[in-house]
């Protein structure tokens, strides 16, 4: 379980393995990107490795992990970590486990939409893009 509150410069991070939920919300340009994201990346990698270790016992029809991103600004250093986090889930996706990735953006913010499209293409998993009014 990870529950980090949002600040002006770093996003809210919520990871609940019991409810198969990961959320990243807000501005992502923490002062020390490594110190901020490394523990998150590490815990998620441990979780996905654990799932892979018991993959034969998992009911593929009922498993659904939801990742939700609702970001306002991202710096390139954060993008690298966001990519690594999604990459951990890609391993589950490759084992036919259902991974849903929702990318929210303001309807007149091409920049965040494009960031999401780029991440989706790089990682090879389609995202669901949800616009909302500014």
């Amino acid at each position: 379980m990870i529950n980090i509150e949002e600040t002006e410069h770093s996003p809210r991070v919520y990871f609940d393995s019991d409810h198969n939920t990961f959320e990243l919300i807000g501005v992502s340009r923490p002062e020390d990107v490594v110190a901020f994201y490394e523990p998150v990346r590490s815990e998620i990698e441990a979780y996905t490795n654990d799932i892979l270790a018991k993959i034969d016992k998992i009911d593929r029809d009922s498993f659904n992990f939801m990742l939700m991103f609702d970001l306002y600004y991202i710096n390139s250093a954060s993008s690298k970590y966001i990519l690594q986090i999604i990459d951990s889930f890609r391993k589950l996706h490759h084992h036919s486990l259902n991974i849903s990735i929702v990318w929210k953006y303001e309807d007149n913010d091409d920049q965040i939409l494009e960031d999401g499209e780029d991440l989706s293409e790089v990682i090879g998993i389609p995202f669901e893009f949800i616009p909302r009014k500014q």
Partner: protein
Amino acid sequence: MAKNEILIYKGPLNHEMINGLIHKVQNRFIELDVLYNLQKRGITILIELLENSCNYMRKLNNEEIADLPDPEMHIVQSDDVLHFYSGNLIFKEDSKILERKLKELNNIEISKIRDYYKFAMVGSMHSQKGTGGIGLMRILKIAKSRFNYSFKKIDDKFLYYNVEIILKN
């Protein structure tokens, strides 16, 4: 053509100062009623430029640079165009690497920059190196223009690196 000064800054850079500069620019954008989409792209470019400068200046922490020029950031708006001018000290030997990188990026066809960026992201995903190169590529991808840059000699050890990028709506 009316020109508006958005930001003129010359001084030290750290995370807090970057936050202050971003706030200042955001407020100025609102004051000048800059198109929202241009604001968002402009702030993203500003973040990348300032963080690149700040990260590089950390590398010079142990150098005696008190009497040498500080980093600078200048943003001007004319109609729906934003001009970004950024500058900082750079070690002479690092300038060669940076110049090679900038030349390489400027040689990429504008329509292909996004593909290069995505390719570079894959390469950087598990790399231990910093993301300075990716940051520059991201700026180019957002601006869809070219870097105009120069290196001016300061002394035998340092040059002053200036880069200009234009962002159109």
